[in-house]
């Protein structure tokens, strides 16, 4: 689709308009100048021709007036005027007839007295049709202007008749333009077939065209009118010795024909130039606007968020090329900045997530500790309060056993049952108080092997459980509170034993040294810990046992942490659970 506001189209359009305007103006100016010049040249030539024709005509008129002058000087003619009222003598008749010997024959020849009256007695050959008009006397040979009569040009030549130097009358010839002389024809041929020769009065009236024959001559309208219509160029030349003039008309169409041809050719050339210029302009504009359009598209893409887009036309060494390169560089910077920003945001987000995780863990730990502390207080007070009643009950059983004389078997049995249950209760209370005891560890160097051995003996291990005991040689001493770690170990051993639930199994206790720490692994061959409970079992009051209050592992973990160690659990691939207790060595502090 053409966008009419696009530079791609506007530039060539403007160029085309300017070019067309310039060419048209120049053409009009040039054509006008050339036309004027051509017409002037033609007019000059026509003037020359007219002058030549005039001079020829002038000679003819001079001959006519000279002949008339000769006849007017004839004594018989003068004599006729001396005696008015008497007819012309034969001699005078002959003299007048001599005027007919010329190339042209006058219509009428008459002798007029000073009043303009014709002298009687002129021969019929010399008299024209109609009455002879009266003419004013002349004192020199006079040629009268043409008159159009019955479609023909007529003129009068009058010469004075003098008697002893005094004008006594005049000799008058009425003549008609009847034919064209050879000289005219030659000149006409010279001027060319398009030229028209006219003769008429100098004031432009009574014109006739000079052709081969003049019957009937065409009376034309005024030449100035014709020229005013711009059809012809007209040259005029007055004929000396007469009130007449020759006119040469030449059609402008003929004069301007070569100019017209030239004009068309020029126009064709100009049109080609304009078309070429438009094409060149379009190409130039395209060359200029294509990179701009590319830049615009790229900018739109970048604004839309696609920062990978770059301008294609960056090779040009002109300003647009530089613009494209600068734009590309700018886009690179923008992309780098955004990437950098994204990286930073990612890093910060990751930091934040880590912090949040740590915070949550810390919070969980705090909650766990708080829970433990509350439980500890409760356990401690409940434990102590239970000890007295248990003691009283134990005392009571003791007294009963010794005071009842010959007790029944049943009584004995129940006294034993009471005694056993009291002992069990006392042990539970002892465990509870142990777990609630929250003392800071009294750390000292402790031998791992002897600690493990000692604690193992404290646990009642069924005979069908095989104990596997592997402690590395050269084990370094650990730096812990032996009582607290002992409590952890007893818990782990007890748990492992209980996990095997009186089934035959193996209790594996291994200790090794690595990374400046001692790792103690306690493994059983029980069912293991369900994966979703691996962490939960360390929570206070969580237990999987039918009997137990769920403090052992949570207390163990707390104690491990207090001793700068850690306690974790996982399921062994070969079955059962493995509790791993990491403890600091004496070297690592």
């Amino acid at each position, binding site marked *: 689709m053409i966008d009419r506001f696009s530079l791609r189209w506007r530039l060539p359009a403007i160029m085309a308009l300017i070019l067309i305007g310039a060419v048209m103006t120049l053409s009009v100016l040039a054509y006008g100048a050339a036309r004027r010049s051509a017409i002037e040249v033609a007019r000059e030539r026509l003037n020359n021709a007219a002058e030549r024709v005039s001079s020829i005509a002038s000679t003819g008129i001079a001959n006519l007036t000279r002949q008339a002058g000769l006849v007017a000087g004839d004594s018989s003619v003068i004599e006729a005027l001396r005696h008015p009222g008497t007819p012309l003598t034969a001699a005078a008749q002959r003299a007048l007839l001599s005027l007919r010997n010329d190339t042209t024959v006058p219509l009428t020849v008459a002798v007029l007295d000073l009043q303009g009256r014709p002298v009687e007695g002129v021969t019929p050959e010399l008299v024209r049709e109609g009455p002879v008009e009266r003419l004013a006397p002349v004192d020199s040979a006079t040629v009268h202007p043409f008159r159009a009569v019955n479609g023909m040009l007529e003129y009068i030549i009058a010469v004075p008749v003098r008697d002893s130097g005094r004008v006594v009358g005049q000799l008058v010839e009425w003549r008609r333009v009847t034919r064209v002389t050879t000289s005219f024809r030659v000149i006409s041929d010279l001027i060319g077939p398009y030229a028209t020769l006219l003769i008429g009065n100098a004031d432009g009236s009574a014109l006739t065209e000079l052709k081969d024959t003049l019957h009937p001559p065409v009376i034309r309208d005024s030449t100035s009118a014709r020229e005013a219509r711009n059809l012809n160029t007209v040259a005029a030349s007055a004929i000396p010795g007469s009130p007449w003039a020759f006119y040469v008309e030449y059609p402008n169409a003929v004069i301007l024909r070569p100019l017209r041809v030239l004009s068309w050719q020029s126009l064709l050339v100009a049109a080609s130039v304009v078309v070429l210029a438009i094409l060149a302009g379009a190409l130039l504009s395209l060359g200029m606007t294509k990179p701009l359009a590319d830049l615009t598209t790229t900018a739109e893409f970048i604004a839309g968020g696609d920062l990978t887009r770059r301008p294609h036309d960056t090779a040009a060494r002109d300003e647009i090329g530089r613009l494209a390169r600068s734009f590309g560089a700018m886009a690179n910077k923008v992309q780098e900045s955004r990437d950098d920003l994204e990286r930073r945001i990612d890093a910060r987000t990751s930091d934040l997530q880590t912090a949040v995780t740590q915070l949550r863990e810390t919070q969980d730990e705090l909650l766990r500790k708080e829970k433990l502390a509350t439980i500890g207080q409760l356990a401690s007070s409940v434990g*102590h309060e239970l*000890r*007295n*009643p248990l003691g*009283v009950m*134990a*005392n009571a059983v003791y*007294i009963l056993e010794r005071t009842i004389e010959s007790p029944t078997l049943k009584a004995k049995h129940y006294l034993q049952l009471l005694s056993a249950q009291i002992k069990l209760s006392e042990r539970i209370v002892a465990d509870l108080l142990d777990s609630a005891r929250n003392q800071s560890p009294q750390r000292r160097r402790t031998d791992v092997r002897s600690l493990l051995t000692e604690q193992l003996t404290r646990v009642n291990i069924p005979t069908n459980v095989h104990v596997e005991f592997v402690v590395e040689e050269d084990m370094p001493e650990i730096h812990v509170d032996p009582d607290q770690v002992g409590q952890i170990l007893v818990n782990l051993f007890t748990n492992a034993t209980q996990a095997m639930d009186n089934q035959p199994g193996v209790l594996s206790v291994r200790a090794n040294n690595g990374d400046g720490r001692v790792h103690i692994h306690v493994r059983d061959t029980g069912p293991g810990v369900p994966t979703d409970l691996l962490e939960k079992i360390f929570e206070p009051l969580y237990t999987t046992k039918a009997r137990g209050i769920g403090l052992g592992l949570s207390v163990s973990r707390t104690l491990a942490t207090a001793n700068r160690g850690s306690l974790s659990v996982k399921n062994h691939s070969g079955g059962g659970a493995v509790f791993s207790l990491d403890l600091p060595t004496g070297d690592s502090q």
Partner: protein
Amino acid sequence: MAVVDDDRDMVRSLCDILELHGWEAVPSYDGEGAVSLSRNDDIDLFLMDVRMPRLNGVDAWNAIRVLHPKAKSVLMTAYAPPEALALTPGQGVVRILRKPVAVPDLIDALESALE
């Protein structure tokens, strides 16, 4: 000897056990009672709980020693470990027993005190 504890059942049962073993036992249910008993020269051994309301076992024992320097005692405690008490066996305290006290341990301690 005197059996001192704020738990009356405990005192009575202990008295019965001691009588079973041939000893004469006088019950007392608080520290003040124990101190007043000490004025009686017949009583030269005190089996006394440490934790009691008002006058506790340790303070009562210190008071008794002032009135009756030759008296001896066996103390019982459910709470603090023996070493935490500001007492040493040399101050007339023959033994400090952890509650719950097993009867054989008790008899053993009393016998060694009466020697």
